[in-house]
């Protein structure tokens, strides 16, 4: 016969005898585990999806004029009215030289009011060299502009204004000093997702000629993008550009996506810690209810403890009996919590992140066992004091109890 654990048997039977009470206590742990695991999974999925999108452009350096103060951020456009707020062709050439074999192109950008389909709105308008446009961008439909009155637009732009290839887009307002220009959409860009070098999904990409003609800002580049051949050279190229342009004054800021990734991750991290803290409160409540249930179990069974002690059950066996009881509640609760957090987590991740592509990635799925372990451990810890009380009862006093 296999080695028996009669102490565990007693714990199991006690849980079964007080099933409703035990289930209610376990429910607290279930809720806590689901909350912690789901929030952990949402955060992991967000981070993974952002990382994936950004790492697609991880080999791109963005060089922008150094406007003095901190500045930066990842919003583009916003009007380059400031005189110093552009890069000139000399600087562009310096960057090209410093970047070696990397592909370098300049970018103009402006934000302007537009009218497309039957709607009005604002949009970022980019412009770049014709050749760079063909090298850097990919179309899903249509063709690149062949005249100055033609543009390509991002997929989200198409969706938002409900237009198609061949539709007209009016840029600007007749009251503006630049006046109104009407352009025709000839192509739709492939989705690029979130990126810091060129956020084209919701933007218009025009020809350089059209752009400089309209805004009268020839050779005033908003930014220069450097596509590095080998991602391992990123630091070397950054340094080279920094050396070449920032030797006397800080002329330019050089950003790569890793910094943006860092800032997003840290923001997400802060939000996640906060949310997990709130979820943690539910576990605390669960711990209190387990503690209460265990105290009730001890109080109800004082006499039984007296019997067990008087016929030769050791203190540590009594202790184990009650810790097991808490552990059973904890493990069952955490187990149910784990299954539910897979289901609920899947739905919530889909709802909040928009994709469950990364749901089964290790960083995401490990939140389930993690939540489970935390839940079970909290349960056992809440059971320790009641169990200790039980094991230290005086057998004579305990036997006398009714």
């Amino acid at each position: 016969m296999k080695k028996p654990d009669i102490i565990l048997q007693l714990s199991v039977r006690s849980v079964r005898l007080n099933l409703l009470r035990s289930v209610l206590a376990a429910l607290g742990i279930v809720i806590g585990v689901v909350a912690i695991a789901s929030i952990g999974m949402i955060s992991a999925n967000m981070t993974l999806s952002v990382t994936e999108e950004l790492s697609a452009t991880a080999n791109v350096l963005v060089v922008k004029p150094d406007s003095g103060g901190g500045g930066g951020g990842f919003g583009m456009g916003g009007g380059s009215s400031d005189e110093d707020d552009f890069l000139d062709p000399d600087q562009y050439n310096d960057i090209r030289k410093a970047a070696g074999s990397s592909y370098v192109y300049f970018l103009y950008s402006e934000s302007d009011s537009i009218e497309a389909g039957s709607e009005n709105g604002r949009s970022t308008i980019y412009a770049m060299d014709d050749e760079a446009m063909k090298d850097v961008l990919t179309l899903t439909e249509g063709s690149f502009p062949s005249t100055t009155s033609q543009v390509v637009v991002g997929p989200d732009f198409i969706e938002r204004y409900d237009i198609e290839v061949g539709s007209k887009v009016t840029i600007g307002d007749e009251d503006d000093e630049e006046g109104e220009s009407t352009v025709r959409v000839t192509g739709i860009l492939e989705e690029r997702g979130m990126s810091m070098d060129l956020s084209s999904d919701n933007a218009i990409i025009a020809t350089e000629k059209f752009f400089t003609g309209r805004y009268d800002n020839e050779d005033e580049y908003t930014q220069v993008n450097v596509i590095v051949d080998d991602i391992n050279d990123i630091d070397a190229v950054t340094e080279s550009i920094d050396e070449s342009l920032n030797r006397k004054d800080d002329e330019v800021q050089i950003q790569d996506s890793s910094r943006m990734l860092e800032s997003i991750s840290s923001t997400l991290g802060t939000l996640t810690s906060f949310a997990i803290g709130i979820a943690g409160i539910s576990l605390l409540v669960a711990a209190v209810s387990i503690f209460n249930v265990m105290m009730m179990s001890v109080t109800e069974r004082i006499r039984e403890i007296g019997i067990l002690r008087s016929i030769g059950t050791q203190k540590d066996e009594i202790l184990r009996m009650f810790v097991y009881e808490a552990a059973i509640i904890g493990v069952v609760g955490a187990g149910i919590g784990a299954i539910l957090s897979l289901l609920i987590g899947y739905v919530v991740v889909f709802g909040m992140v928009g994709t469950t592509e990364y749901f089964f990635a290790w960083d995401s799925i490990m939140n389930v066992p993690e939540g489970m372990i935390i839940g079970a451990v909290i349960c056992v810890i809440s059971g320790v004091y009641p169990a200790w009380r039980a094991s230290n009862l005086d057998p004579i006093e305990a036997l006398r109890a009714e």
Partner: protein
Amino acid sequence: MDSTPVIALVDVRKIYPLLSGDVHALDGVSLSIAKGEFVAIMGPSGSGKSTLMNQIGCLDVPSSGTVKIDGQDISQLSDFDLTALRRDSIGYIFQKFNLIPLLTAFENVEYPLVLRDRKYDDTGRVQALLDSVGIDAALAAHRPAELSGGQQQRVAVARALVNEPSILLCDEPTGNLDSKTSTQIMEMLARLNREGRTVIMVTHDASTAEYADRTIMIQDGRIV
């Protein structure tokens, strides 16, 4: 009879300190019980007989004096060793039966055996004991709450015997039973005594005390 006593008490005192003054529950009790004896301890309530039983039963240690069980001075033992002594050397039979409600009758009898040997009974000893007290296998599958008082006390007797203790300690074993069942239980204890077991019984019922070889009267913490 054996010359070395199974139980030897020398000048045992037990004092409970209370705010209103110390209570001398045992006030210099000396007692020796030889192997194979059947001893009844009688006395009015509050006389200290329960305290005396707790000393003999290793549930409590004296304030002063020595209590020796099987030659071992219990005041020298740790809680762990006292517990092991209770498990291996003493069989308890209580007035209120005190079976473990979560376990079946069979498991109740098996429990001390499992505590000692770390394995379930595979020798048939548990059922044999149950049979000898008149509990068949079908009845043994029931929980204590489903048994009558007499049946519960029979199970308790079987449990007390399972680890072959040198002492059977009975605290008012018939106190909660009707007279017919009482007689059966007392006959059973007498039989066990004839088979060579040392039986110590607390009672205030003179008719059950008649089964004993010797009756010790106790009053105000002293043997009279």
